[in-house]
């Protein structure tokens, strides 16, 4: 279990960040998912853990959005009574810090270019509709097949293919518009 969690924690965090656009919230979601996995499915065979974890993670992300809806409702209701605090949108450029661990032998220009491409791709993924993003990341990044992805998302295999196709198409158009060729 420990090895599995170690192998998935960073990708889980990144998936959550793409969805919720907040590092702290994403960390909470990742921790919540890991806790749920160990508490409820700690005795399952190792082969079952990837799918189980993905389902738990996606549910945790949806739960976060539901809580945010309720929270935002109360904030809206009481916003007239107290001065509101501006919500800080996550600065996408914060992801540039990830370049800190990059290969030191790369030239500065190459490193900057790679970092910028990564940052743009992450931006575009964040902007995808939630179901398209979920299908794309599960199918291609987590490398689940169509059937497994459909099980995690709770939809048909046809829907998964449609979401993946639309996500890929949207990303291709967006990257082309930004002058990025992979």
């Amino acid at each position: 279990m420990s090895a599995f969690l170690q192998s998935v924690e960073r990708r889980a965090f990144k998936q959550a960040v793409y969805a919720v656009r907040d590092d702290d919230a994403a960390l909470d979601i990742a921790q919540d998912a890991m806790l749920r996995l160990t508490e409820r499915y700690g005795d399952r065979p190792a082969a079952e853990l990837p799918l189980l974890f993905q389902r738990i993670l996606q549910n945790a992300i949806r739960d976060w959005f539901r809580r945010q809806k309720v929270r935002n409702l109360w904030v809206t209701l009481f916003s007239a009574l107290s001065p509101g605090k501006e919500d800080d949108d996550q600065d996408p450029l914060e992801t540039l810090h990830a370049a800190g661990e990059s290969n030191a032998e790369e030239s500065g220009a190459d490193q900057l270019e790679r970092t910028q491409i990564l940052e743009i791709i992450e931006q575009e993924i964040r902007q995808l509709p939630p179901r398209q993003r979920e299908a794309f990341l599960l199918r291609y990044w987590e490398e689940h097949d169509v059937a497994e992805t459909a099980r995690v998302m709770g939809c048909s295999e046809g829907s998964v293919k449609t979401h993946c196709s639309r996500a890929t198409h949207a990303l291709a158009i967006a990257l082309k518009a930004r002058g990025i060729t992979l």
Partner: protein
Amino acid sequence: MNEQLFANKICQVLDRATRVEPAIAERLRAARERALDARRIELAPGLAWADNVLGSIGGQSGLWLRLVLPTLLLVASVAGIYTWQQNQRLAETEEIDAELLTDDLPIDAYLDRGFEAWLKKRAAR
């Protein structure tokens, strides 16, 4: 462009995104340890087997089994202990009755008040 090919290229770039700041990496490590600790605390040697059986059953039926089955087992155990105690008392009573009836002294002697007084006097000595 081929969808799979394009997606693979995107994912190659995304794989670089899994490099996170040291602070984030440390918090993820701590979260992982908390999850593993929760699992270790939950399991006690005596409950490990029960947890293994019941833990594989999720949802409402699992919840039902986690509450109702242990309660039923507890009630059955208490009922069993009570029945055993009653049987023990009955057996002891039967044993005493058997000894009285098979004794050389006739059973009617125990109904004689003079005999009872003699027994008390003898016990007082």
